[in-house]
């Protein structure tokens, strides 16, 4: 009734190729943007911003990074945590070496370093496929983790072995990072970076490079026969993916955690992000948001909701119970909808199109 394309004609190439061809979609999109940029900072308290909104956005960006590699280019990777770590450590080194340069610029620059590392570990993908490739990305993960612990130069030889984000502010005196930074400021910076990156990735995927990634994913030999160069396609997917993960990793330290041990970028993080990709839907950008929300917010919700409805079994058991519930939900989701939450979203939109009738 409300969600119809009837009467909306595409009279030029540009309107035909628009990201949101439907008026209703555009209204919805700008409403969400308005809520995210205006309503959330005004209404949310520090807990919601610090514990939910900021990490959710950062993890979404990392999920987008992995989705480029796994969902669009079809290369399964378990090295996400390591690549995020490279971004974080690169940013730390850069900002301690050049304290006067704008921190946002450095965060964007630090992704370049992780893209370089990603390229190197992407090289075996030219010969190795599928589950076998997981081993090479695991090699990246464990090797990088080892570097973060053993190479003192990376954390400026400080005693704790951890890196913490120093206080950095804009020219106007607005504190962006460090312990004195305001939650709302950090939230807005993160949101802006994530929104812009999402737009860039969306356009990258709609273009020639993205199409060549998808060809490689669907059948690499056929793609090669049709003139896609696997070297360029696979390595560019690795580079773009690691760049995004690196930026996410740098933000993870500078805008969310503040101070990290190397163990923050362990294999657990890689798995968590792979979950977000799969639960959200392989090869879908909106799925990244859904997946990150599901995996990040559900445990927090369960931890707070279970005591609220009277199941009081002690904090430790709640954690265990949460782990069980998450496991069951993951399996349930895979059984009910193997294509992820993005597919559910799409089905919902199709249902809405013919609503209130069951079919058109």
């Amino acid at each position, binding site marked *: 009734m409300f969600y119809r394309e009837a009467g909306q004609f595409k009279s030029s190439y540009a309107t035909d190729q628009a990201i949101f061809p439907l008026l209703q979609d555009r209204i919805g999109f700008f409403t969400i943007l308005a809520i995210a940029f205006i309503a959330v900072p005004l209404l949310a308290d520090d807990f919601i911003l610090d514990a939910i909104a900021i990490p959710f956005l950062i993890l979404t960006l990392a999920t987008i990074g992995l989705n480029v590699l796994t969902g669009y280019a079809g290369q*399964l990777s378990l090295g996400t945590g390591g690549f995020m770590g490279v971004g974080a450590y690169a940013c730390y080194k850069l900002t301690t070496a050049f304290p006067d340069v704008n921190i946002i610029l450095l965060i964007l620059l630090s992704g370049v370093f992780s893209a370089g590392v990603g390229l190197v570990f992407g090289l*075996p993908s030219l*010969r*190795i*496929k*599928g*589950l*076998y490739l*997981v*081993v*090479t990305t*695991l*090699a990246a993960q*464990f*090797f990088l*983790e*080892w570097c973060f*612990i*053993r190479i003192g130069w990376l954390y400026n030889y400080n005693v704790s072995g951890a890196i913490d984000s120093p206080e950095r502010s804009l020219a106007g005196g607005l504190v962006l990072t460090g312990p004195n930074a305001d939650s709302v400021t950090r939230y807005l910076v993160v949101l802006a970076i994530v929104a812009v990156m999402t737009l860039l990735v969306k356009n990258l995927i709609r273009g020639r490079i993205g199409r060549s990634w998808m060809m490689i994913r669907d*059948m690499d*030999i*056929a793609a090669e*026969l049709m003139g896609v160069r696997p070297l360029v396609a696979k390595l560019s997917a690795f580079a773009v993916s690691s760049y995004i993960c690196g930026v996410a990793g740098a933000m993870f330290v500078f805008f969310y955690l503040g101070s990290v041990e190397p163990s923050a970028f362990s*294999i657990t993080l890689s*798995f968590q992000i*792979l*979950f977000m990709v*799969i639960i959200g839907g*392989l090869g879908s950008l909106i799925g990244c948001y859904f997946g990150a929300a599901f995996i990040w917010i559900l445990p927090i919700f369960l931890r707070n909701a279970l005591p609220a409805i009277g199941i009081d079994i002690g904090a*430790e*058991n709640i954690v*265990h*119970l*949460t*782990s*069980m*519930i*998450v*496991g*069951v*939900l*993951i*399996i349930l989701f*895979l*059984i009910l909808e*193997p294509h992820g939450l993005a597919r559910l979203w799409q089905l919902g939109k199709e249902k809405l199109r013919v609503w209130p009738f069951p079919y058109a």
Partner: protein
Amino acid sequence: MDLLNGIFIAPFVQMADAPDFLVQVLWEGFVSGILYALIALGFVLIFKASGVFNFAQGIMVVFAALTLVGLYQKGVPVILALILTMAVMGILALAVERFIMRPLVNQPHVILLMATIGLTYFLVGLGEFVFGGEPKQMITTELGLPTGSTEIPFGAQGVVILQHIDIAAAVIAIAMVTALALFFNRTRIGRALRAVADDHQAALSVGISLHQIWAIVWFASGLVALATGIMWGARSDVSFALEIIALRALPVLILGGFTSVPGAIVGGLIVGIGEKIGEIYWGPLLGGGIESWLAYMIALVFLLFRPQGLFGERIIERV
């Protein structure tokens, strides 16, 4: 020059100087290789019969060991605890077949892989919920496993120390592999299993029940997990830190090929021995701790030359 000396000369001089130490290192590598092989064996069993890369194998190892120790601590006699643990692994196999394998049949590899990771989360939560999260001591003596060690004189004045538990681990591992090989090749169920591994549909058409085979395979790898859990548990504590060894089994599988039982053994030995030798003789060059990634690097280099593994079936790709 120092670096070249450190890489190419000094380690070998060190080896030649102390042959007893070298043998000791080789033995240690051999034992951990056997244990890797046991974990890899659990993977291979399931992968062969159902094409599922069972990520939960590592947690099944911990879960089995935890159940055994937990039951014993609750006052169950040791034999009964052992039988009950086997029963638990059997129930787990049936549940996995009914609630994961059956609804997800014919899905892409990555979906099944994710489902087993979901199973991992569930088992971690369940194990900690029922038995508590703190590390436990494996009931080595109660199970009748030997403790203590033997010193064997070696060379002029050196000795090699063999832990009895390690010898027992090697013997049990070899016995299990033999038993499995016989089971695969000599029994009716074993043949059915190989038929399923070869072609699901063809196996169905000659009247082999996939459900039954899957349950049997998951049970078999549950038992392998129990044996592995006891052995690993005896060498260190029983805790969820053991979970990480599941990832160690991955390079082992890669080296051996996903579908080969002898491959799992040889791969395990290569990784186990390579890791120990690398850590002891070349590790100090890089500041130590290289054990955590060396196995993956070995597998990575290996893969570049032989993408299907040592004993894997040749990969033929068609468009």
